[in-house]
């Protein structure tokens, strides 16, 4: 009798396991975010294995500084710093609406290994004033050049990130943009970057690979 009860209990707990599958939610109310970008749906949720741990490079604690120094919370006056929820809001409110871009400012080889869903690659080096193609990039972001006068009134809202709070590439990209005349209110900084995004088990996207 006792054994049969035990078996029933076991059966019940196994049977109800899928019901616990979404026990790692984004917030108490939100299980996943589904956002439609350019006709394609992206889903952001979290890894459901509560025993999952990071492996490899993102487990390192003590990268040499310089160059991997701790970045400030606010990268420049007027440039808002975002957390993960705000990044998702940005994707939904701005990127999906076509007036914002989520930019991965890391070099292409890092971007290729995995990025935040919906992000596009704009390596920080391409925004350097010495880059001959920088003006074209500014134009692609919505700036217009008349004679020698830049007009940034129609530029897109940008959210920029890199590898995380120990990575200066996104702050550098933001400084370059500000120096070029990009308005601070059109820029935002996701300081957590890939480090915190991965730490929270959030979905990533491997460009051209799946």
């Amino acid at each position: 009798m006792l054994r049969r009860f035990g078996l029933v209990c076991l059966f019940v707990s196994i049977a109800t396991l899928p019901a616990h599958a979404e026990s790692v939610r984004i917030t108490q109310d939100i299980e996943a975010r589904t956002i439609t970008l350019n006709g394609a749906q992206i889903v952001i949720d979290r890894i459901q294995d509560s025993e999952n741990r990071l492996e490899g490079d993102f487990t390192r604690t003590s990268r040499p500084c310089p160059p991997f120094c701790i970045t400030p919370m606010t990268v420049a006056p007027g440039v808002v710093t975002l957390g993960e929820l705000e990044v998702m809001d940005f994707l939904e409110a701005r990127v999906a609406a076509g007036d914002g871009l989520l930019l991965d400012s890391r070099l292409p080889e890092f971007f290729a290994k995995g990025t935040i869903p919906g992000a596009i690659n704009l390596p920080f080096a391409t925004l350097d004033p010495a880059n001959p193609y920088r003006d074209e990039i500014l134009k692609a972001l919505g700036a217009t050049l008349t004679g020698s006068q830049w007009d940034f009134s129609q530029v897109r809202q940008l959210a920029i990130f890199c590898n995380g709070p120990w990575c200066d590439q996104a702050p550098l990209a933001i400084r370059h943009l500000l120096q070029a005349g990009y308005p601070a209110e059109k820029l935002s900084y996701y300081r957590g970057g890939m480090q915190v995004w991965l730490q929270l088990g959030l979905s990533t996207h491997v460009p051209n690979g799946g």
Partner: protein
Amino acid sequence: MFRALAIASLFTGITVALVLLQPDGGARFDADGVSVTRASDGLAGAAYLPAGGNVLANPIAAPENRPQDPQRRTPERAATAAGTDLQTMTRGVLAELGVAPGSLAANDGTDGADDPLRAMSLDALTGLRNFTGQPAPAPAQGDPLQKLIAKALMAGQSDAYIDALLNEAAGRGEIAVPRALVTAEGRVDTHVILSSIVAQATLAVGQEVPAPSVPGGDGVEVRMVQRADKTVEHMFYTVNSGDSLGAIAVKFYGDISRYTTIYEANRGLLSSPDRLRVGQRLVIPTI
């Protein structure tokens, strides 16, 4: 007038050369000519063109002036950088004139293939444009400035006439003038535009552009500074009336796109390449 004649004679020279070298030379020139005038794929397409292909037809892909002299060949990023607008404009004018600067690239396989920043920028632009659905910009040959110059040159107008024409058009805001071509008086530096076109046309037919004469004359000042182990030469130039940054670059380096070298060395004085003032004493870096 002199320059218009020079262009005209070059043009004739090319035609003669074409007639003489008809079997292969002629065919290739034609092919280049076609792609220059028909290139409608903007930057995005250029990213995937093979090295040495006719990337020159593209406004952004236009590489810097390539003198044959290996010493002056050392490509400097910054110079390539901001020189692009001048080079593009010059090539645009030549394309309007029917001289295909594209033939320049054909015998030079190093067309930016070894430049990671260029590849990265082009990829980023492709990504941005794919995502935002923006079309790549139209090639620069429709630029009003280029059309104006080409038309005047073909009509055999004098330098003075072209100068007046450009300044009037610029005054009415009909043409956009590259910043390095604005003189200390705020005028268009027609002289440098025309010299640049002649130099490019010379290169396009495979001749060498004469190296600049050793700079001297008004406003040039050389100082020797004794350091612990060596003597360093510092050169200065005082801006004269009628100078543009492009003209000063040609004067000292023989290459208009080098104006960025001078601009970068004098950022403290110059807020922008078109803010030159008579009497300013510019540092001229040794390259």
